[in-house]
């Protein structure tokens, strides 16, 4: 019983069922999901950094406003 390589491949392909495809899809999805999860974590981390920096910037701006008020008082006084 001899068959050609094409026939052999054809018969081998017939053995592929939906479960094989599902398995492959799942592995692919898991791979991408992992990458996306890492990116989500990065985005969350950057968001926290931005909010922290903005909070500090606001504090500094408040201090600057106080100094500006004092300078304005001096200007009015002279």
């Amino acid at each position, binding site marked *: *019983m001899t*068959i*050609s390589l094409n*026939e*052999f*491949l054809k*018969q*081998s*392909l017939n*053995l*592929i069922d939906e479960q*094989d*495809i599902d398995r*492959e*899809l799942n592995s*692919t*999805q898991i791979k*991408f999901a992992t*990458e*996306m999860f890492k*990116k*989500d974590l*990065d*985005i969350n981390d*950057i*968001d926290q*950094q*931005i909010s922290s*920096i*903005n909070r*500090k*910037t606001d504090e*500094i*701006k408040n*201090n*600057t406003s106080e*100094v*500006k008020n*004092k*300078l*304005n008082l*001096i*200007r009015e006084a*002279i």
Partner: protein
Amino acid sequence: MNIDKEMIQKAVDEALEKVLEMQDKVDNSDEIIDTVSLEDTADDDSTNKDKVSEEIPENSTVEKVEEKVEEAVDDKADYNFLGLDIKIDKNGEKFDITIKKDDKEKTESLDSADLPAILGLVEDFFNELVLDEDLENAEDEEEVEEIDKEDSEKENEEDSEEEDDDEDEDEEDEDSDIWKAPKVTMSSLRRKYKDRINQVFEHGLLAKEMAFDMVKDKLVASTVKELIDKNKEKESVLAEKKAQLKQASLNYLIAKKLDSQYNKLFTVLSSSIADVQKDLTDNKINPELANKTLASYKIIIAKVLAAKKPETLIAAITKVDEIKKVLLAKTTIKETKVVQASKTVTKDISKKEIKNVVKPVNILNRNGWKGNTTILAKRYDGIEEMSAEILRIAGIDEEE
């Protein structure tokens, strides 16, 4: 002929009755009884009592049942199992097993008529039945295809250019026939390769995986494309967030620098204005200069309050410093003039006046040495001479 259930049941009942009798003897006796000897006596009794018991060998109950089955099988027997007619014929030392269902019949010769061997034959028979049905279906399909082919060939004869294509199709059909034709029973294959079933199975799986790898990319292409698109969206969001972080950091640095410069400017301006006030109070500067300086400071503050870059503040601080230096320079010049003026006045004072100023007053003899009535008067009698000598050394002529 079926296996005689009544006969087997009778043999089992007799064996059970014998056991119960022995147990009864043991229970009703006060003496210690040897159960082995009791079994022997029970066997003797039973031999005398019943003819049926003579046919039962002196073995265990299971062995008795097996012997009964063997006896039944030894004879020519027909059985019906799972809809199959099974016929067992003893042919010398071998057994001819014939299995029949509808039109299909199969005969095999076995060394022994044990149950596993017969069940194996039954399994093979069913496999062959299923394969035959598949082949029949395939043949039906082929017939339909052949009819279609004949029709198409008729059509194709009219078109001579497509003859080559027909030949190719025929070749392909032949190839598929080559593959379909050698149908081998699974049972025979299983028997043939029973020592390598796992290896054959693994090889088949490898072949499947290899073929799957070849087409995998196409199969998952659309799904992967969706995933890649989502991944790209995430990447763009991430890049946007990074840009926001960079801008926030820049804003923080600018705000910090501005705050630092504002504080510095406030300090410099406060001290400068305080200096101006002090100089004005001390008359070091005139009111016009003070007003002019303060007006300059006012302009600087107005500019600074609207500033959004640290450079503006730095320039303002530099400007304040410059104004401060100019003011200091003017104050210094004025002070120098005052000093110089005071020096000129000093030169005009006569040496005599200086002498009067410089000459120390001796509290002991300020009213004349003759008026000193203290006990130290005698010791300081020469104070006038000493004072004159000092004045002479200093270059101040008393006579002048």
